[in-house]
């Protein structure tokens, strides 16, 4: 299958990317291409112009700065997987990158692309909701910062304007006694999640949960933030019955539909189980475990 014809530009500076984007209706950004190229081959996407950002070299960084992990939009999943700072301080992000697609795809696919594509089956959106991350977008009117909670507006839809590009992802640096985990059930390596859950939490000196974010993957038209489950846990000691209660609330927040991956009831049940397991794993990590 060969995609229809299109124009192609590969600028080396991000300002030129924005100029091309704002000057060409129907233009699309090509980052890792691991979702876009298959969509073009099926002719589900037919951009008039592809703006390949792979030659913009200053968009691939991963570093901590002033209370945030800053990740350039073009950082590959494989870069995140092998990053020492991500492995040692951002286990939720490390977990997530490790289970996306397969190692070959992860050599190309990018964090910015995973978010901007906004497929509800993509894994990073739920993780960014759990982290309370921010997304930096650049357009002809300059830069703006969008909270992850405001970014995903619908099925494959974001609050990005057509002439904006994601340039950076900002994840809050971990405080003491914090931990996170991403757990995914997939039928086989490379498949999208049947369901997956991201948890990031902070414990206070007594060991009570002072802050928690819970994000759900592929159980609705957008990634879902399980706010009722978060509220039920915040300020409380993480004991068994409360965690089970929160897991049920997360399952209620899910809006799955039955498909070839399972029934609605099965997916809700998965969300409950994965939520409690991810909370336990996050707790273990917040207490110094791996």
């Amino acid at each position, binding site marked *: 299958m060969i995609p229809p014809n299109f124009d192609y530009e590969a600028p080396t500076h991000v300002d030129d990317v924005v100029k091309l984007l704002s000057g060409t209706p129907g233009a699309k950004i090509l980052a890792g291409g691991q979702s876009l190229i298959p969509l073009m081959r099926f002719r589900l996407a037919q951009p008039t112009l592809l703006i390949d950002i*792979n030659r913009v070299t200053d968009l691939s960084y991963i570093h901590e700065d002033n209370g945030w992990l800053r990740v350039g939009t073009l950082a590959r999943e494989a870069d995140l997987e092998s990053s020492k700072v991500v492995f040692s301080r951002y286990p939720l992000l490390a977990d997530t990158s490790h289970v996306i697609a397969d190692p070959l795809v992860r050599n190309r696919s990018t964090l910015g692309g995973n978010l901007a594509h906004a497929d509800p089956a993509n894994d990073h959106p739920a993780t960014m909701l759990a982290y309370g991350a921010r997304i930096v977008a650049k357009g002809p009117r300059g830069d703006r910062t969008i909270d992850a909670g405001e970014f995903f507006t619908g099925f494959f839809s974001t609050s990005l304007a057509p002439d904006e590009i994601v340039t950076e992802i900002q994840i809050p640096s971990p405080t003491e006694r914090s931990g996170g985990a991403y757990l995914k059930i997939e039928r086989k390596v490379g498949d999208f999640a049947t369901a997956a859950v991201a948890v990031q939490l902070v414990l206070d000196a007594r060991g009570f949960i002072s802050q928690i974010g819970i994000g759900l993957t592929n159980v609705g038209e957008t990634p879902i933030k399980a706010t009722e489950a978060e509220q039920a846990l915040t300020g409380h000691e993480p004991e068994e019955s409360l965690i089970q209660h929160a897991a049920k609330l997360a399952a209620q927040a899910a809006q799955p539909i039955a498909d070839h991956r399972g029934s609605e009831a099965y997916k809700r049940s998965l969300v409950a189980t994965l939520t409690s397991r991810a909370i336990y794993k996050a707790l273990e990590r917040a207490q110094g475990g791996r």
Partner: protein
Amino acid sequence: MSTHHVTVTVNGQAHEADIEARLLLVHFLRETLNMTGTHIGCDTTSCGACTVMLNGKAVKSCTVFAVQADGSDVTTVEGLAQNGNLHPIQEGFMEKHGLQCGFCTPGMMMSSVALLAQNPNPTEDEIRWGISGNLCRCTGYVNIVKAIQYASEKMQAQE
């Protein structure tokens, strides 16, 4: 629509061509350069039969446009043997019967070479994880794992 002049180095040899932007890297290799060692399997970024190394990273060449490889180094299965001597991974697949129909083999070997470059002495679990983007429908993977272990041992002994 747009046509581009590209120079792509494949297995150490530079090739120039005028190509459409929509030409996929796998089609460039197979149809422009007539190097048919790289296979097309699923056409949907699933099976890994088209795996090549792009600037040292194993990628699915059905999901990269050839124009993106302008100025890059590509290694295909044709580039593994040197001076008529099989690469240890090729020897491993032969010695350990790592294939039946052979369709997945070029991609499987390219993933293996990339894995061994990163991790010269992988555990069985690490091998299975490393080739998880490559599908084989004949073997059940047991002999493929053995072939990669054979190559790992041989390559370490050579160092």
